[in-house]
């Protein structure tokens, strides 16, 4: 109990730093989450309306009908039949699609020639979207004409078809209606709070306890060495539980129950508990290699910010480039973030996704174990050097 007490006496003195890290994290998480719109994909569907320019070079019924049909789905814009003007309009994004209806378009269509020409920004969704609608219209006319309808009848038919309302039903393939739970954003940023708070509290105690003469005093006392180590272990666990508990209480209040009333509760909790284990192991390492509070402070910032940036907590991995993405795989934050992303993206997990979640959690456990092993080796070496 005495050894256990010393941890918490010292941690109490640094409680402001712990709260600071948790406060910053909660602030970031809430701000980021608030900036996202909450329109789920099954809540409603509205077709996209684009600015489409039509250059009519010959007029006629086909051109008029095509403009009428396109006008039902998009906003039509008039521009000059000038190649340079067309290029500029597309370049500045004033229009997304330019349709040129050729002279004698109907005749050309009937003769199997190209009746219209389109100019778009290559590779854009708009290009494919409008192009598909134009082609569908022309195919309808072509089919009607081949079926013996007159051009007027064919055009009337095409307009009638275009005005039929389409019922769109979106399938909730991911099981979460396309919405990430609010608390998923909170959990996404939690590693920063865990790392900062654990290092700033636990490392200070470890740094103090590893001082040669304090260790000498402890070892020459009547408290067995095993008991001292056990007390240290319990202190680690209690500290981890306190930081984790504070974060859970905050999310419960912020999101009205948060993870406790949502999807994948067990996985979220397990992923965060395992990351707390990672944070404690890193705090153990940091305290072992730091000799002064200044060094410790610097290391706390480098580790917490560095791991969060490189592991995809603060910025998506894709933004870091391919090479950096490969490096990130060696970081526990990457696996935490990946697991959290899976839990956020899917309301229901299939077998493969469940496997990925467990893999992410297992890799974090391995990282923590490796970190503890390295720290113990360093401590052993430090003890031998001091002896």
């Amino acid at each position, binding site marked *: 109990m*005495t050894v256990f007490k010393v941890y918490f*006496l010292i941690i109490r003195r*640094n409680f402001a730093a712990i709260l600071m890290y948790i406060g910053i994290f909660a602030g970031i998480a809430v701000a980021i989450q608030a900036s996202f719109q909450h329109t789920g994909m099954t809540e409603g569907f509205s077709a996209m309306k684009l600015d489409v320019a039509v250059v009519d070079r010959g007029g006629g019924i086909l051109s008029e009908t095509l403009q009428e049909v396109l006008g039902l789905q998009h906003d039509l814009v008039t521009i000059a039949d000038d190649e340079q003007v067309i290029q500029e309009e597309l370049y500045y994004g004033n229009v997304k699609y330019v349709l040129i209806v050729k002279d004698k378009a109907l005749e050309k269509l009937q003769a199997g020639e190209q009746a219209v020409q389109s100019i778009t920004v290559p590779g854009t969704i708009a290009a494919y979207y409008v192009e598909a609608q134009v082609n569908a219209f022309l195919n309808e006319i072509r089919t009607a004409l081949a079926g013996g309808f007159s051009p007027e009848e064919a055009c009337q038919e095409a307009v009638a078809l275009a005005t039929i309302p389409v019922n769109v039903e979106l399938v909730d393939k991911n099981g979460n209606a396309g919405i990430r739970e609010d608390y998923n954003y909170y959990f996404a940023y939690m590693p920063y709070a865990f790392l900062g708070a654990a290092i700033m509290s636990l490392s200070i105690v470890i740094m103090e306890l590893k001082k040669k003469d304090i260790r000498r005093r402890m070892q020459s006392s009547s408290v067995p060495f095993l008991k001292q180590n056990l007390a240290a272990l319990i202190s680690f666990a209690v500290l981890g539980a306190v930081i984790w508990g504070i974060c859970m209480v905050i999310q419960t209040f912020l999101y009205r129950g948060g993870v406790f009333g949502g999807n994948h509760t067990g996985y979220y909790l397990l992923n965060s508990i395992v990351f707390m284990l990672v944070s404690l192991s890193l705090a153990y390492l940091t305290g072992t290699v730091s000799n002064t509070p200044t060094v410790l402070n610097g290391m706390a910032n480098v580790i917490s910010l560095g791991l969060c940036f490189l592991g995809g907590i603060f910025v998506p991995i894709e933004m870091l480039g391919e090479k950096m993405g490969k490096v990130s795989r060696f970081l526990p934050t990457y696996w935490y973030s990946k697991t959290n992303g899976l839990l956020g993206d899917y309301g229901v997990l299939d077998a493969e996704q469940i496997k990925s979640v467990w893999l992410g959690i297992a890799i974090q456990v391995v990282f923590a174990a490796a970190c503890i092993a390295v720290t113990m080796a360093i401590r052993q070496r430090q003890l031998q050097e001091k002896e």
Partner: protein
Amino acid sequence: MIHIENLVKRYGEVLALDHLNLDIAEGEIFGLLGPNGSGKTTAINCLLALLKYDKGEITVFGEPMHPESYEQKRQIGIVPQNVAVFEQMSVYENIDYFCGLYVKEKQKRRELVEEAIAFVGLEDYRKMLPRKLSGGLLRRLNIACGIAHQPRLIILDEPTVAVDPQSRNKILEGIVALNKKGSTIIYTSHYMEEVEQICTRIVIMDHGRCIASGTTEELKRMIKTGETICIEGVMLTDGQTEAIRALPHVFQADYAQEENRLVIKCTSAKHNLIRVLNYLQQEEVPFGRVFSELPTLNDVFLEITGKELRD
């Protein structure tokens, strides 16, 4: 109380303790004197079972000492050479913590901590953090942390290093007071004056060996020098120096011509100084300041090892 027999400790090729033998009786203030690197701290660490040793036997309170000898450890207090306290804990918390490693009962511990605070005179600094204390006060805190549980045996490992003279005296007085209260003290130092001042028995160590032991007087009697006479501002011929060397009880006379200084070592006898001064008057040799010194522990060390204690 403590028996160390043929203790050998090696650090690789270096022989830190070379068949060390020590016996310490209850109630002593036992001084372990020796230059830096002589093996004092290693001996203490072996005694506390903090270090494994290669050969030998250690018994404390009549029982063999092992790392798991917690009952014996309960009766020992250690004051390490460097200040070993928690920077983030107050004076009271530090003493309470280290006392708590020995005394579980809260009420009793509170009393002991208060006694320790009063003993080292830190009553006004209870709530202060160590970084706000001066060097002397820090040393006192270091001592309080080691003695608060009122151990039967207190080991003080060079507790006055880098301490101002005023605090040093206070610490030395405190150690004597602890001994009077019933604790046996092991005091290691390379300051011979301190050891001479407070220790009832002394062991001089060098190269991991005990080279002499006894009370201050016994140690001084072991050597030839009984008195050292120093005469300054004196000009002597070679013949006169030789004549002084031939005086009764004089066994060494060194004349430094550049400094006009004569140092004479005599065996223990009456009227050594008078005989030397009579000779100088007889030869009509003028001289300046004259003083005579009784042998110190440094002389003991010098004569036994051929080198100064502080080399």
